């Protein structure tokens, strides 16, 4: 659950000294390292999947279906007799890709609409605010479920687009209030008086100073999107086999939890750690960027 309430729009540029101090703290290093590892997993899956001997997620032997740990397979086998470790490593890619792409799409929409509403106000503000409320009015994942159920081909890309298109409203609200708080500041007024073009004022003066709270929310929302993707996949309207994803593995594992809990546990642990790392990273950024913490 995103809790936007804790984020206040801060009219301050990203302070480099505070950032530099924050990145040396373990609360930043630990989650950043975990996420770095996961990104490495998703870029070079075959290298990491082969760490314990068997690197092919599709090399399956029904004879060892749902077996526990074995030499060369410390994480055991799934129901199809495939190596669980190899599948979990290859599954990182879908989660990371969906998390990043959907967040980029959502944040892009949010920045455009939020800036329109916050900078120009008036009619633009009214229209955007109503639109935001409409999209916030959808019950949990309902819009995504309805649309994805009608889409025949559900690839990581189509799932990301749908999640991004339904995921922008909270960010847009934040951009709007953040831009509004910057708009009336002296340097923006000065830039206007100097006759700079609106485009230049927005891109060079307003946005760089308005986006630091958005950065934090975007980071946290990567975790929310990853959970949303696995939930949709678990419900059967997200990614589909033969794609390899944590959601699919958890869905399959939950049917055999009684006899072979490891099939459910490993992808769940990876999913939980990913979300935890993203939340911690967001927290570290929040602490670094909050002017109240300036020492």
């Amino acid at each position, binding site marked *: *659950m995103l*809790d936007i*309430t*804790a984020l206040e729009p801060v009219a301050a540029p990203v302070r480099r000294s505070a950032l530099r101090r924050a990145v040396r703290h373990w609360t930043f290093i630990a989650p950043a390292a975990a996420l770095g590892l996961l990104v490495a997993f998703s870029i070079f899956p075959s290298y990491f999947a082969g760490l314990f001997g068997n690197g092919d997620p599709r090399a399956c032997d029904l004879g060892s279906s749902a077996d526990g740990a074995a030499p060369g397979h410390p994480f055991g086998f799934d129901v199809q007799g495939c190596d669980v470790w190899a599948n979990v490593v290859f599954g990182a890619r879908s989660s990371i890709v969906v998390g990043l792409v959907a967040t980029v799409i959502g944040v892009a929409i949010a920045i455009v609409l939020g800036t329109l509403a916050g900078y120009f106000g008036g009619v633009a503000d009214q229209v955007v605010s*109503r*639109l935001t*409320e*409409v999209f916030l*009015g*959808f*019950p*949990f*994942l*309902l*819009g995504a*479920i*309805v*649309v994805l*159920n*009608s*889409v*025949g081909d559900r690839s990581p890309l189509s799932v990301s687009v749908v999640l991004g298109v339904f995921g922008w409203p909270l960010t847009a609200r934040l951009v709007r209030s953040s831009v509004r708080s910057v708009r009336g500041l002296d340097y923006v007024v000065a830039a206007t008086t100097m006759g700079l073009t609106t485009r230049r004022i927005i891109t060079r003066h307003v946005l760089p100073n308005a986006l630091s709270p958005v950065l934090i929310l975007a980071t946290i929302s990567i*975790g929310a999107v990853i*959970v949303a993707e*696995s*939930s949709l996949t*678990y*419900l*059967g*309207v997200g990614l589909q086999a033969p794609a390899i994803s944590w959601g699919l593995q*958890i869905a399959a594992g*939950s049917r055999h*939890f*009684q006899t072979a809990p490891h099939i*459910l546990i490993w992808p*769940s642990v990876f*999913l*939980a*750690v990913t*979300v*935890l790392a993203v*939340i911690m990273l967001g927290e570290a950024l929040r602490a670094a960027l909050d002017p109240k913490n300036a020492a």
Partner: protein
Amino acid sequence: MRLAAKTAQRLAGLALVFLGVTFVIYLAVFALPGDPVRALAGDKPLEESTVAALRVKYNLDLPIWQQYWMYLSGLVHGDLGSDFKGRPVLGLMATRWPVTIALALTAWAMEIVVGLTIGVVQALRRGTVIDHGLLALTVLASCVPVFVLGVVSQQVFGVTLGWLPVAGVRDGWPASYILPAAVIAVFGLSAVSRLMRGAMVESLSADYVRAGRAKGFGPGRVVGIHVLRNSLIPASTYLATDLGYLLGGTVIIEGIFNLPGVGNLLFEAIRTHEGPTVVGVSTALIVIFLATSVLVDAIHVGLDPRLRRA
């Protein structure tokens, strides 16, 4: 007078949002690919004339805006239409609501009691091991996807230990609802406790608290009356919004624990392309969501006297 004008403006805004959301859902249900008439027939091939007749019967041959208009006018008369098997949508929902409401309220009560308690304890023991430990615990719990927690707790407490019913509602409230509600509540604890802790910490150092202490009020009166009441605003906003979502039926939990609630009905309707049911149930959920947002405003005005002067 200003308050009346504000209220009117707010209601007009809500009506606009209602029209917007229902129209988007209507579009998504009826304009996207996926043919309900074919779905109705299953695997059997249908005669073209039968298909055409069914389309006319359910007004699927009309342009989308006309269909939406007919749906709206039905709504004004309290009619949500019938599904493709001829059952009225209102009747379909009637048996489902008690289950979802019981589940939502149980989960909500757990969230309030446990979440607020954790937040208060954290604020009063700020910076100690208890504070950090509770924070770590709630954040960790919120990172485990709800369906994993659901499946695991069902197996552990339902099947292995046999403490609580595994699934279904045959054992009635509370037995059948404790486990699913707890799973839902665990997920919300982190937000509730964090909001409560933050607000408490801020109020504890506020001037009126110092004034209260200076007047010689005991800690029970200062914390119990002044700090608690003033700290409830952020958490209560979150909790009210959350109730709106919970009443939408948690598709995943209702599915795992086989609870015949509204979320389950909605999800099945989406899967089987039962357009009228999807739109009908969604309409009800949106009304609930909007009602809770009004409730949030009312709570604000109730808890923060400054807002009443506006």
